[in-house]
């Protein structure tokens, strides 16, 4: 640590890092040098390999091939604990915490000093925790349990933990997504301070403006390869996007011409206290309405409320002009609503059940008139869907868990198309999907709108909203803050409405 002559040597040098999961290479021969005292952004699409790389550095995954050199010494980061002892800390987006333990305990947990029966030095622990919190300038009672802390505070605890173990390399994996702008500011200020102390920070984000505001250098990943490492100043946004996707943005997203008809879905003053309030919106037949905003703005909650998964406390919903009560998803389905949820694994697929059964899950009446399942009908419906949506699979009886994410998502979409919905709500439909399949998806969604369905598209990817939607609504902190026509909608206007504090506070009727 006292050796200053090594200061121009990189803190961490990665050489030829590769990683395969189940025979599929997700990271290929990555070379990367991290300097002391820099904030280094990792950029790339979902699945580009940036998170995998970060997790290898942090000891969560072991590389299939390649070496890591820390301070000129080759190291084997076999576990997060080893990483910590080497001074490497990974801060997850949803920080890991032990909700029943105190903040101070959460800070020291995992520090590898002492055996099983070593004493827990409560007084010292609390004192150190307080000191660290003061150092970060945050006010958290360190003796309280973690349960109930905000995400931002939990991140601060994580950062404090990194400081407690005197980490030289701190990896932040999409830390800002769940934060308010004010919290982001605080986080950035602390990050800069840590950098100025000579620590290195890896910053993973999708938000170019944040990367620009914070980072010194940027490395771009695509399809498991490192594409480029540059000083942030030398690249324009367009350059970065080009490097990330390998081709111009709009090439694979195009809006089909549709005729917009009557109002299919109308929501008025929908409120769920503490989650969202006064949401009013309409979606017309053939119209594709985008719903943008930051993660945690309440977009998914609104969709879940409309669909009856977690109904709102007050407000009215009209479908095709008629007021309806939707207390559960089956009521919503009966009214011609469909909802492709955000988290496929949790709320979408039946992992171990055949693809066939996954596709027909929402249409019991079609496959089993009278209660008994007609195998032939089911098979016909399923294989028809498979052909239509070009789902790649070995057999209809194959467990859906064996398919790739994109094909799983197609199967879920197929499930909803079988219900012949009037209104289709899509929540982050392209998350975790290969870029090729994404393009297919956009085509399909476009066709659906063209065939006269009303579509509400929730997305965090601004280009997606901009390219596909007739209108873009924006939510922030549980309220609608913008209703932008296709012409008005730009990255800037959407972000302006999405970022709390930036937009005007009055509700927007949409």
């Amino acid at each position, binding site marked *: 640590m006292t050796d200053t002559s090594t200061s121009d040597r990189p803190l961490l040098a990665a050489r030829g890092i590769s990683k395969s*999961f*189940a*025979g*599929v290479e*997700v990271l290929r021969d990555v070379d990367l040098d991290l300097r002391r005292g820099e904030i280094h952004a990792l950029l790339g699409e979902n699945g580009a390999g940036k998170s*995998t790389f970060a*997790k290898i550095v942090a000891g*969560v*995954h072991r590389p299939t091939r390649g070496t890591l050199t820390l301070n000129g010494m080759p190291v084997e980061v076999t576990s997060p604990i080893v990483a910590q002892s080497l001074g490497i800390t990974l801060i997850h987006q949803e920080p890991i915490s032990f909700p029943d333990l105190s903040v101070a305990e959460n800070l020291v947990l995992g520090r590898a000093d002492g055996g099983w029966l070593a004493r827990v030095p409560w007084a010292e622990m609390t004192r150190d925790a307080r000191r660290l919190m003061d150092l970060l300038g945050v006010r958290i009672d360190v003796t309280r349990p973690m349960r109930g802390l905000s995400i931002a505070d939990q991140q601060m605890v994580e950062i404090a933990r990194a400081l407690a173990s005197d980490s030289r390399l701190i990896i932040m994996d999409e830390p800002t997504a769940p934060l308010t702008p004010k919290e982001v500011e605080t986080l950035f200020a602390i990050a800069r301070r840590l950098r100025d102390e000579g620590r290195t920070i890896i910053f993973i984000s999708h938000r170019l403006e944040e990367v620009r505001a914070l980072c010194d250098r940027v490395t771009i990943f695509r399809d498991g390869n490192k594409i480029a490492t540059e000083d942030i100043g030398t690249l324009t946004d367009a350059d970065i996007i080009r490097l990330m996707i390998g081709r111009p943005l709009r090439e694979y997203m195009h809006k089909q011409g549709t005729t917009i008809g009557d109002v299919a879905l109308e929501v008025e003053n929908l409120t769920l206290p503490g989650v969202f309030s006064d949401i009013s919106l309409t979606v017309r037949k053939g119209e594709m309405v985008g719903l943008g905003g930051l993660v945690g703005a309440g977009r998914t909650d609104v969709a879940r409320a409309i*669909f009856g*998964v977690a109904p709102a406390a007050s407000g009215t919903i009209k479908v095709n002009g008629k007021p309806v009560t939707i207390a*559960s*998803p*089956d009521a*919503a*389905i009966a009214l011609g609503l469909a*909802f492709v*949820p955000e988290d496929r*694994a*949790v*709320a*979408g*697929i*039946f*992992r*171990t*059940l055949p693809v066939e*059964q996954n596709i027909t*899950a*929402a249409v*019991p009446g079609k*496959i*089993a008139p009278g*209660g*008994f*399942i007609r195998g032939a009908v089911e098979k016909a419906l399923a294989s028809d869907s498979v052909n239509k949506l070009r789902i*790649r*699979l*070995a*057999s209809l*009886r*194959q*467990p859906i*868990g*064996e*398919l*790739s994410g994109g*094909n799983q998502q197609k199967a879920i979409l197929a*499930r909803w198309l079988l219900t012949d919905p009037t209104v289709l709500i899509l929540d982050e439909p392209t998350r975790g999907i290969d870029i090729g399949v994404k393009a297919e998806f956009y085509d399909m969604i476009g066709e659906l709108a063209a065939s006269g369905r009303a579509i509400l598209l929730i997305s965090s990817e601004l280009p997606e909203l901009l390219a596909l939607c007739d209108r873009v609504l924006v939510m922030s902190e549980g309220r609608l803050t913008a209703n932008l026509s296709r012409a008005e909608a730009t990255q800037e206007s959407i972000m302006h409405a999405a970022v709390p504090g930036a937009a005007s506070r009055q509700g927007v009727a949409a």
Partner: protein
Amino acid sequence: MSAIENPVVVSAREAAPPRPLWQVIVIRPETMTLVLLILALFGASLLSPYFLDFGYILRSFTLSAEFAMVALVLTMVIIAGEIDLSPAANMALSACLFAFAQQAGIPMPIAIGIGLVAGLVMGAINAIMVIRLQIPSIIVTIGTLTLYRGIAQVIAGDKSIRVPEWFIGVNNVLMAGIPVPVIIFLVMSIVLGLVLGTTIFGRQIYQIGTNEVAARHAGIRSQRIKMGLFLLMGLVSAAAGILTASRLGSVRYDLGLGGELQMVLMAMLGGTYIFGGRGTILGTFLAAWLLVIVSTGMTVANVLPAVQLVVLGVLLVVSIIATNAIYSRTQR
């Protein structure tokens, strides 16, 4: 139940050829049960020359037939991702109430009705605690198991309550040479097997057990289905309790004591996956016979009951390990 997910496993099986048909058919837990059943038959025949007598095996089966009936419903409950450990206590309490009522001079059909309603109510209490109050079923039913049998004990004390002579001995009534309880079990197996295997209700039980959140999103009324299963469980338990009363001719609070283990064992041995989503009625059907043959074989050979306890304990653990292994082999 831990849910440690594999980190971002990228799958590439969609291009692979489908598994050969024989594998799909043969590598299933039910096959294991069938093989064990055949082995047990051989083993028991070798163990005692008195064993291999169809009439005796059937008679012995009547002693477990009530548990086996409940185990069929329990299989469905476990496939739906829940568990119910209270049915044996439910059997005791509903049988006590039934016997108490008919002893108090209430006409038999009404007394039976009282027993069945009591069973339904007990099922409903479980269901409400599990579904409405969201307390894990395994803990709820451990509590109600103690409570139901405790109430039976309060009602009946140490007395046994007699049932009238004409009501006694349903197990001795034969139809086509088969005792009535065995017939009931066979019919229930076929009916529930069809329900689980061919109806949308059965399909949705698997879907709920595989992923309840996804099931709700797909419009499946999971709470209603689970409620139905718990109620069915209560009803069938009560009916089983009343059948037991007829077989024994009297009811005590300790009727069916420890039966929950046998029921769980039947379901587990039949390849029902403890975490839900997998299992068949056929498996439980086979397992019920397996269990009866194993314990009857040992009893008729005068094997120490202690050894039987050990064998049952080992069977339970082994069957779960085997089931887990088979499922993780055939499906990720």
